[in-house]
């Protein structure tokens, strides 16, 4: 079928944009590949950061250490989800007598969103075991996890709160008129919608968590960041960090794309 003049025009414009986009991308890549190695310090930088030999030597060890990151993430994430949800619910309590609960939730999110994660990890990871807990209850794995959960639950709670508040008041009224209790309204009406709405926002937080797991290394666990640091120190070479970054990217990029996909899907569903 012959194209209309308009269709032909649009196809031409599209072809032209694609060509220009491809050309400019290629130009940037070529310029980078040619110009960066021309810099006087490039051989030294290459040796320190992009050393193939060091990379090959250390990559298996890094991959192995990354398993610990995955494990910490795997047991932290559900705890964060649960605690975050509880705090968000505490903030939504409307009975006057339960105001202390609400106040607690407000203070909690304020504090743990405001304090740097690393400080919480140090304080909880060294401080609480320092009170004299017996083994194995003083393990840095336990208290490091607690620190991560406390911090991230504060963020997740805020995300859930926005989700809960985004459900229109009229739905609560409708549920009440059907005879649902307040708890049932929350459980069967509000939360199913609220949680679904904030999935993309929470995905973002969990991607951030994936990286912050590495901060646990400050209190002892030898996860990928620490392992890379050991290699760096022994070989006086930063290539292991580049290796670690690649491993992180291999996880976080697909996760980010998935979050984007969920966001787009949600937008389509709404419009």
């Amino acid at each position, binding site marked *: 079928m012959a194209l209309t003049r308009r269709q032909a025009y649009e196809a031409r414009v599209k072809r032209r944009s694609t060509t220009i986009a491809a050309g400019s991308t290629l130009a940037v890549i070529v310029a980078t590949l040619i110009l960066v190695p021309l810099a006087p*310090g490039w051989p*030294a*930088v290459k*040796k*320190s*950061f992009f050393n193939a030999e060091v990379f090959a030597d250390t990559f298996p060890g890094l991959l192995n250490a990354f398993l610990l990151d995955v494990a910490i993430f795997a047991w932290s994430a559900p705890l964060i989800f649960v605690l975050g949800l509880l705090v968000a619910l505490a903030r939504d309590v409307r009975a006057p007598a339960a105001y202390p609960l609400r106040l607690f939730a407000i203070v909690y999110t304020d504090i743990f969103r405001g304090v740097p994660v690393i400080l919480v990890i140090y304080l909880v990871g*060294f401080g609480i*075991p*320092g009170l*004299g*807990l017996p*083994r194995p209850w*003083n*393990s*840095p794995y336990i208290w490091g996890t607690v620190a991560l959960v406390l911090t991230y639950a504060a963020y997740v709670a805020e995300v859930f709160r926005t989700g809960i508040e985004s459900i229109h008041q009229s739905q609560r009224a409708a549920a009440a008129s059907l005879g649902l209790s307040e708890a049932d309204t929350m459980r069967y009406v509000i939360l199913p919608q609220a949680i679904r709405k904030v999935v993309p926002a929470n995905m973002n937080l969990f991607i951030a968590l994936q990286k912050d797991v590495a901060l646990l*290394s*400050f*209190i*002892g*666990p*030898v996860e990928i960041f*620490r392992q890379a*640091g*050991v290699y*760096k*120190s*022994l*070989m*006086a*070479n*930063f290539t292991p960090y580049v290796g670690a970054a690649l491993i992180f990217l291999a996880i976080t990029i697909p996760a980010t794309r998935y979050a984007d996909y969920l966001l787009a899907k949600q937008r389509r569903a709404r419009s």
Partner: protein
Amino acid sequence: MRLLLTTLIALPLATGALAQNDCANGLTLEDGKLTIATGNPAYYPWVMDDAPESKQGFEAAVAYAVANEMGFSDDQVVWVRSSFDEAIQPGAKNFDFNLQQYSITPERDEIVDFSVPYYSAAMAVLTRAPVVEGGAEATIDSLKGLIWGADANTTAVPMLGEVIAPEKDPLLYGDNTDVVEAMKANQIDAALFDLPTALYLSAVVLDDGVILGQFPAERSESPDSFGLLFEEGNPLKSCVDTALNALKADGRLAAIEAEWLSETTGVPVIE
């Protein structure tokens, strides 16, 4: 006329520079100054009170002895601070040499340059009284059963794996303070340090610190030798090496070691 004037002005400067050993002439960062870097903070007994200018402490004393041997007066020595990472990253450095207990390893030597060694450190086992009361002994078999910690940036890490091979994975930390904190929190039983550092930590930092024993430098396969660190290819190295060798030959280096690190004798040797 102008040329004459310049020459006249330059003359005293030139003679000033000539007062130094010829070998360092024009090779330092700043003419007539020797810029030396140490850690931030610098630890006892390497540098007393974190004040290298006071010449107190083993490394401070060595630095001034080397500087004097190279023809620099005490006033011509300038101190700067650097972290381990700063010292090994590629590019120009802000110091002529850096001393903060850098162990010489072949891998590190590929990225930076080291002087001849100025100290051979024995490795020592730092632990606490309750662990010793619990039956820990200075034998490899007994040490294997302990939970170990170490500073991740030190050569103690590979040594732990090779010599002791503990049953449980060791926990690694970013600096001495964190290792000690983990010890106080009873998260680790013992830690491996170079002997002078271990002595300091057990005597000053830990209330119930005990040095269980030492692995003498000459016993380990790759003895832990400290060298002054230079930027790769720094021509000053040969000049500093000459100075260090002179200090070694006439016993001055040994005298400095005896003055600051004398307590290291008398620590039981681990069989």
